């Protein structure tokens, strides 16, 4: 089963430990990781996406693309609020994930048991990963030991959103790194801080 996984931590250091642990699970062949990134929400509510990219234009795209993905992960498809709406809200106002979650909560019960609404609170960090896993056990157990909270949404459900798929309005796959990484001093960490947040 292929899923998008968001693992939320109270600090960045733990998020990076989790990032490496996810890739370690891949190395142990317990899961297959297609891409990962680390996202932070600072104390003022703005999102930052770790990126090696130094191009300001792309930095904006990183923010918008990952913001849309966060929205899609937070707002599962349902009668009251579709995943596309969730993506739209996420993309339009990354800081509104809490609202997305509230709107989506009633429908979440009808979704796959792997779909979970979530919120990235101020000061928290999250690892976002695109993974293939035969069982949720390996990630859940490893992340529990690190103190993280794991949320999942089926890859197919996110890809069905009109915002994504092959002709995505907000492409983000390119911003999930296909290998384990550490940021170096020269690397640019873009801030996702829309005017409406």
């Amino acid at each position, binding site marked *: 089963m*292929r899923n998008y996984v968001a693992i939320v931590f109270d600090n960045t250091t733990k998020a990076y430990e989790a990032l490496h642990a996810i890739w370690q699970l891949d190395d*142990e*062949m317990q899961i*297959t*990781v*297609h*891409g990962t990134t680390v996202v932070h929400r600072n104390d003022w509510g703005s999102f930052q996406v770790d990126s*090696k*990219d*130094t*191009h300001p234009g*792309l930095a904006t795209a990183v923010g918008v693309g990952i913001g849309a993905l966060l929205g899609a992960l937070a707002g599962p498809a349902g009668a009251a609020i579709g995943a596309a709406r969730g993506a739209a809200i996420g993309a339009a106002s990354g800081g509104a994930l809490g609202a997305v979650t509230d709107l989506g909560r009633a429908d979440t019960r009808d979704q796959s048991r792997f779909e979970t609404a979530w919120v990235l609170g101020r000061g928290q960090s999250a690892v976002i990963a695109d993974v*293939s896993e*035969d069982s949720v056990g390996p990630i859940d157990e490893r992340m529990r030991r690190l103190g993280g909270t794991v949320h999942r949404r089926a890859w197919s459900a996110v890809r069905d959103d009109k915002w994504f798929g092959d002709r995505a309005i907000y492409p983000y*796959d*390119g911003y999930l*790194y*296909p*290998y384990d*990484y550490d940021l170096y001093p*020269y*690397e640019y960490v873009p801030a996702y801080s829309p005017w409406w947040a």
Partner: protein
Amino acid sequence: MPDTKVKDAVDKARAAVQELHRTITDAAAKRGGAVKADLEAVSQKAKAVSESIKGSLAVQNGTTKKHLAEAMTYLEATGKHAADGVKSSGKELQTAVRQTIADARAAAQKVSEAVAAKRTSASAQPAGR
């Protein structure tokens, strides 16, 4: 550890494509001649990885083979755009670097999907096979 958990040619191809992506994304932070030297290396490496995958296709199952064939297409595009970048400058060079990164990322995606398909089919096989 079960004997299904042995890294093979597909895992090695994945590692090579990941390295390719790492090289080009690191190169994107450089300027001028340094970028071109890296692009030239990427172009050659993309061809080598594609040839390596081609050599292992015959022994792969349907889904794995499909993903690897798609990866080869992206690797060819990676090599082409990297080669274009070597011959260009200014905005054209920037565009070539962007396209090379996008193609390398797509190739990495397809190879990791091949790895996932292979691991899933291996874990689904009865023990002892």
